[in-house]
């Protein structure tokens, strides 16, 4: 498999001013690694404020002026120079922005998607929007409609890589799945998809691999199936965690899902892939899993450290149940059970 995008040892800092003369650097991303191959859908999940969106903006070259980046971003093996970026951006490289303020407020949304009338109609109806929506201005749309318009705009060309920054908030379950299926189809047709999301449930169901971010670095890269359970088999039915007071809402009626690894990326939409999450390696990934409403809704105490005030060793150590003296030294990424983890104690 050829890599479309390769991000190596990426770091990002903002130049900040304390007063007029004193400049300091605020390191928000350190030692971040991620690759997206042809036909692959990679999800980036993790805490709010962990630098997920900044990574997406870094790839797209739309960071603010005071950002300083390090490491390398490679596009099909070539360094991503401003010239190359200008050539591919909006064509081979498409972007679904996170904020609903990215549309031009003075242009009707149909024009912002594409000028090709046939393609426009097809996309609009695919996302269950009424044809007259194309004639509206951005301020006349609801949050979910804006979200869909931005997805349509990104997918109107035939991109080789889609970078989608939180494409699903504000969409109903049905529409969110619809969008994910569309991304999945594009990946299956050979494109790469880099999906930045908090919606770990959708990520598990549709992505091939998940990179978990915490405090501006990758703590774990895992096959999506690892979030299901240890041996990669789908559970029969669902594990409701402690299940206290939880109504069984949807998706309970599936029969035993596929059997085994390899089927891990099938977006067949039949069932929810949930198990006990024991395949996960890093304690933060486990905390993410346990905090999902359908898995126990367990709130791990503590907050992510502030970028200007990072602990010296492992970034997760202040909240970690497995913390020991060894954690005063920052852990290096190491391969473990087919994934990569940055933790001294993960087994």
């Amino acid at each position, binding site marked *: 498999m050829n890599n479309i995008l390769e991000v190596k040892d990426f770091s990002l800092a903002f130049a900040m001013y304390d007063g007029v003369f004193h400049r300091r650097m605020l390191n928000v991303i350190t030692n971040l690694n991620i690759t997206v191959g042809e036909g692959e859908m990679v999800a980036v*999940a*993790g*805490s*709010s*404020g*962990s630098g997920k969106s900044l990574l997406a903006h870094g790839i797209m070259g739309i960071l603010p002026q005071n950002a300083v980046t390090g490491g390398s971003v490679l596009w099909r093996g070539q360094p991503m120079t401003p010239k190359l970026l200008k050539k591919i951006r909006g064509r081979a490289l498409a972007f679904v922005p996170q904020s609903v303020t990215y549309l031009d407020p003075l242009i009707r949304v149909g024009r912002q998607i594409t000028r090709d009338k046939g393609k426009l109609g097809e996309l609009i109806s695919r996302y269950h929007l009424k044809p007259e929506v194309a004639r509206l201005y951005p301020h*006349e*749309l*609801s*949050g*979910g*409609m804006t*979200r*869909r318009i931005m997805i349509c705009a990104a997918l109107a060309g035939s991109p080789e890589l889609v970078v989608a920054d*939180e494409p699903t*908030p*504000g*969409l*109903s*379950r*049905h*529409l*969110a799945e619809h969008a994910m299926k569309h991304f999945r189809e594009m990946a299956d047709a050979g494109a790469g998809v880099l999906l930045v999301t*908090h919606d*770990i*449930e959708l990520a598990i169901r549709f992505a091939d691999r998940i990179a978990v971010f915490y405090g501006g670095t990758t703590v774990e890269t895992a096959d999506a199936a690892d979030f299901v359970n240890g041996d990669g088999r789908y559970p029969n039915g669902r594990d409701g965690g402690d299940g206290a*007071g*939880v*109504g069984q*809402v*949807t998706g309970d009626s599936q029969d035993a899902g596929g059997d085994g690894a390899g089927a891990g990326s099938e977006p067949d939409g039949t069932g929810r892939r949930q198990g006990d999450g024991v395949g996960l390696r890093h304690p933060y990934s486990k*905390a*993410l899993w346990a*905090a*999902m*409403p*359908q898995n126990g*809704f*367990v*709130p*791990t*105490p*503590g*907050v*992510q450290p*502030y970028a*200007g005030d990072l602990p010296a060793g492992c970034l997760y150590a202040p909240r970690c149940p497995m913390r020991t003296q060894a954690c005063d030294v920052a852990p290096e990424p190491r391969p473990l059970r087919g994934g990569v983890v940055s933790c001294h104690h993960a087994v």
Partner: protein
Amino acid sequence: MMGALEAKNISFGYDRKRKVLDDVSISVGAGERVALVGPSGCGKSTLCKVLAGHLEPWSGEVTLDGEALFGRDAGQGTGFEPWRGPGHGHRPCPVQLIYQHPEKAVNPRRKLGKTLTEAYVPGEDVLRALGIEPAWSNRYPAELSGGELQRFCIARALAPGVEFIVADEISTMLDVVTQAQIWQALIRICEVRHIGLVAVTHSPELAARISTRVVELLA
């Protein structure tokens, strides 16, 4: 004076041609937690704004314990008054709205300590329950993550005398650990103080966790 929050036959649209809410009614009992679900664009956020008095409905009214919460003074021509119940002008409205995007709901040029005490001074216990670190009060909104900002927005909305919280997708932009932290804290506070809740969400699993009843708004 605790009573039910009711919206009766609410109609509203942003322009004369398109009605967003057409004769919508909803009732939430004191201390009850209702999850409001429905397809994208069906008017959930609009209904939230009407419930909290941020928008004036074309027709219908919002009542708390049978009394109109918002409205116009017929003779004086004062326009739409958000919150004109007993003691208005001296205490915050008993129905408080928390927005989906906390960064849009705080003044970006004000340190958060000042934003937090806009309506009242939250107690140590509220701050601790919501996990707000004292050092954050000295920062500007751009220096905090969405999850940290949302904690301030929740604390700010929990003034004494508040009887209902309207939460419009308050955790959609947050990671699941932060989501679980914030909801568990908010629900605990609501239970202790007998505060009712209207929560918009797209996740049936989350709705099942946080609410005692699910109401669906149709397009």
